[in-house]
C-alpha cells in the first residue's frame, strides 16, 4: 500500500465543516471537494457558508473612513504629533476632578498632558488652577507656630472634665471647700508617660540606632518587623549620597582639574604657581 496515497475522502461532519469554513480557500483539492459535498447536502452548513462569504465581502469592501480635518497633515504625521504630546485634551469636568492630583504630581504623564493641553484653551480652568496653586502655596508656606508659654497650662486645664455636670460639680466643690487645684504634676507625669510610651513604640517600629546595627551579624534577629542588615562598608573618604559608595569612585572623582596658578585654584588652596602636578596623583 502506498503510504502517500490519501485514500478515499472521509465524509465531513458539521463540526469539522465549521472548523474548516474560515480557511476553505487553503484546503487541498480533495479536501475542498469533501467540504463542498457536505455544504451541498446540509442546509445549516450551507447557510453558515453563505454568512461567511457575506462577511468576507464586507471586509474586502471596507475602506478606511475619511481622516477628516487634520490641518492637512498625513495620518502618520498626526500619530507622531500625538506621541509628542499634541493629542486630545481633557474636558473641564476631567480637569476639575484631576486638578489636585495634577498639582500633587500623582497623575500619569499622559493624563497630565491631556490636562495641560486643556489649560491652553480654557481660561476658566486656568483660573481655577491658579486658585488651587495659591491655596496650595499658602498651605505649604504655613509654619507651625511655637506654642506660647501658657500653652501647657491651658492644655492641662483643657484636660479637666468638660461636661457641664462635671463643671458644676467642680464649682460646687470649689464653693463648698474652696478651690482644689488640679494636680498638675500628676497630669504632667501622665503626659510624659504617654510620650515615652509613644517614643518607645516608634523606635520599635523600624527606628533604631544604626551604629549598633553596623556591628550586627548578617543573620541578626528581627527588630520591629525589619531585618538588620549585614555590616555596611565604608571608607574614610568623602561621604555624600549620590553614588558615594561606588566602589570604583567613578561618581566622586573631582571635576576636571582647574589650571594650576589660576584664581580658582588659589581659592581652593592649590599652589598658586609652580609646575603642573601630574594627573592622577
Amino acid at each position, binding site marked *: 500500500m502506498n503510504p502517500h496515497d490519501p485514500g478515499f475522502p472521509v465524509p465531513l461532519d458539521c463540526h469539522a465543516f465549521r472548523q474548516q469554513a474560515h480557511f476553505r480557500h487553503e484546503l487541498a483539492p480533495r479536501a475542498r471537494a469533501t467540504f463542498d459535498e457536505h455544504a451541498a447536502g446540509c442546509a445549516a452548513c450551507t447557510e453558515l457558508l453563505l454568512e461567511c462569504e457575506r462577511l468576507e465581502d464586507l471586509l474586502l469592501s471596507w475602506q478606511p473612513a475619511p481622516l477628516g480635518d487634520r490641518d492637512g497633515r498625513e495620518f502618520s504625521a498626526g500619530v507622531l504629533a500625538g*506621541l*509628542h504630546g499634541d493629542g486630545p485634551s481633557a474636558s473641564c469636568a476631567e480637569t476639575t476632578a484631576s486638578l489636585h492630583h495634577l498639582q*500633587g*504630581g*500623582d*497623575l500619569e*504623564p499622559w493624563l497630565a498632558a491631556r490636562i495641560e493641553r486643556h489649560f491652553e484653551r480654557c481660561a476658566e480652568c486656568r483660573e481655577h488652577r491658579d486658585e488651587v496653586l495659591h491655596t496650595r502655596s*499658602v498651605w*505649604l*508656606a504655613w*509654619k*507651625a*507656630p511655637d*506654642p506660647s508659654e501658657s*500653652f501647657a497650662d*491651658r492644655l492641662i*486645664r*483643657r484636660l479637666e472634665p468638660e461636661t457641664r455636670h462635671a*463643671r458644676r460639680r467642680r464649682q460646687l466643690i470649689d*464653693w*463648698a471647700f474652696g478651690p482644689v487645684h488640679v494636680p498638675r504634676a500628676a497630669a504632667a507625669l501622665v503626659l510624659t508617660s504617654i510620650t515615652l510610651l509613644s517614643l518607645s513604640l516608634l523606635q520599635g517600629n*523600624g*527606628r*533604631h540606632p*544604626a*551604629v549598633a546595627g553596623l556591628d550586627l*551579624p*548578617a543573620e541578626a534577629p528581627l527588630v520591629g518587623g525589619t531585618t538588620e542588615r549585614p*555590616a*555596611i*562598608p*565604608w571608607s*574614610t573618604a568623602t561621604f555624600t*549620597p*549620590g*553614588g*558615594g*559608595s*561606588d*566602589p*570604583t*569612585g*567613578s*561618581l*566622586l*572623582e*573631582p*571635576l576636571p*582639574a582647574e589650571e594650576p*596658578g*589660576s*584664581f*580658582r585654584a*588659589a581659592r*581652593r*588652596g592649590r599652589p*598658586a*604657581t609652580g609646575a603642573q602636578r601630574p*594627573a*592622577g596623583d
Partner: protein
Amino acid sequence: MDWILALVFAALAPAPARDLARCPLDPEPHQAAPVARPGTVDETAAVAALLERQDRLVLARQRELAAADFAPDFRARDLDVESPAALLERLDRFVDSHRDLALATEVVRLTCVGDCLVADVVRKINGIRRADEAAIREEVHETAVLRRSGEQLRIRSFHDRAVEFDGRLDRAARRYEVGDLCFGVKLPQPFVPIPRRAPGAALDRLLLLDPVNDVELELMVFDPTIDAPLDEALLSDLVRPGSTVLLEPTRFEKAPPAFPQAFVAELEYEETVAAAPRQLRERAIYLSPDRRITFAAWITASADRFDAVKGGVDELVRSLRLTDIKPGRPYHEGLIDANPRWRTLTDGIFRPAAAPIDLVIPAGLAATPLLGDHVIRLRLSLIEDLRSTIVVRVFPQGEKRVAASKLLESSVQRMTEFACAEGVGGDSRRLSGVRQVLGQHGDWNGVEILCADGTRRTWQIVAVDRGGAHVQVQLMPGSAKIELQSAALTKVLDGLRIREP
C-alpha cells in the same frame, strides 16, 4: 435655707467663659514662611558695593578689614575652607604671585529669601603671573550667600556655579528642565537653585539652598557602576562612621509617575566645623524609572530644624517628570537616543567616541555600557560567576584621573566587609607588577584577602596610558572562583586594542 439656695445657684451658674472662648489648641496667628524673590535694585547695589569693597581690600592685602565683611559662621565647602582668615590668606598668596592684577566682581542676579541674599556673581581676573610672566585672564562664576546683620551685610558662604547649565533653569516658573536627560522638576520654595557640574561620571547635579534655615537640598542623576538593589545603594551611600540611621530604607509611597522604584532613608551624624561639632540630619530619596538610572535627592539640615524642612526633598521628588521618553521604552535607552555619544557598544565592540580605545567583548561576559561623560565605563558580568564584575574605565584626554593603586585601595576598603562569604574580611596582602596591555606594560595591582573559611578573594586592577587616554580594567570578585575571574580579566585585557584614526 440660704445655704441651700446658694448651693443651688452655684450649681446652676454658667461655666466661666475664659477657658472656652478660644480653644487652646487653636494655632496662634502665624507669619508666612519666607519665599524666594528677586532682589530689588537697592539690594543689588548693596551687594555689589560689598563685593567691590572686598575686591579692593584683597588687592590691597588688607586682610583684617576684608574679614569684617564675613559672618562668624562663614564656610565654603566647595573651597574647602572653614574661616574667612584661611580664605583671605590664600588670596594674599595669589596676589603676591601676580603683578598688575585687576579683580572685578559683578552681580549677575540677586535672589532674596527672608533676611538672606543669594547673589550669582562673576569674578573677572586679569594680570601677569610673576613666575613665568604669563598674562592671565580668568572668569569665575559662583554664588555668594549673604545675610543681613542689622544694617550690614555679611558673607556666609560661596558655592561653585556651573554657568553653562543656567539655561536649564526657568526661575520665573521655578522649574529645572534638563532636555538631554529627559526630565524636569519643580523647585520647592524657598530654595534657590545653583546648577552644578556633575562629579565624575554622574549625569547631572543641582544644588538648592534655603539660606534662612541653612539647609541644602541636592538632586543628582547617575548610572551606578555596580548593579545593586536600590535600597542597598541608598543605605551604603548614606551611612558613615559614627552615624545613626533614623529611618532604614523604606519604600517611598509618593513616588512620581513612571518611577516604580523609590526608597527613603534618614540619618543623623555629627559634623565638626571650625572645631564646633553640630548634629546634622539627612533625608535621602533614591528612585529609578528603569531599575538602573538612579535619581538621588537628599536634604541636609541641623537636627533641630530637620523636621520642619525635610518635606522639601519630598516635594522636589514628587515633582519629577520624565519628558520625551516614548511609552514602554526604558529610560536609559531614551537617554541613549537623546545622547548618541553614549551608544558605546555596537556589534559586540565597546567603542567610546572620546578615546581611541576599542574592546572586543570576550565570550562569557555580559557587557553593559554605562552612561556618563568624563569617565567612560563598561560593566562586564561573568556569566559563570554573576557576583563578580569587571569594570573598564576610560579617561579621555584632558580629564582628571584617579591613580589606579589609590582606586584599588578605595574599592577594597569599601567592599572588604563583603569580601568573604561570612561577611567579614580576613588577612590581606598587596600584590603588584606589570601586565602586557595594548602592546605595552601596564601597572598591575592586586589585594588578596584570605577569608576565615580558607577561601580567597583577589581584587585586581590594571592601568595603562595609550592614545592620550588612560584605561583601567578592574576586577571586583564576588566569589572564590579566582581562576575563572583571572581568566576573564586576561580575556578583557587581550580584547583591548587601539583604534586607528
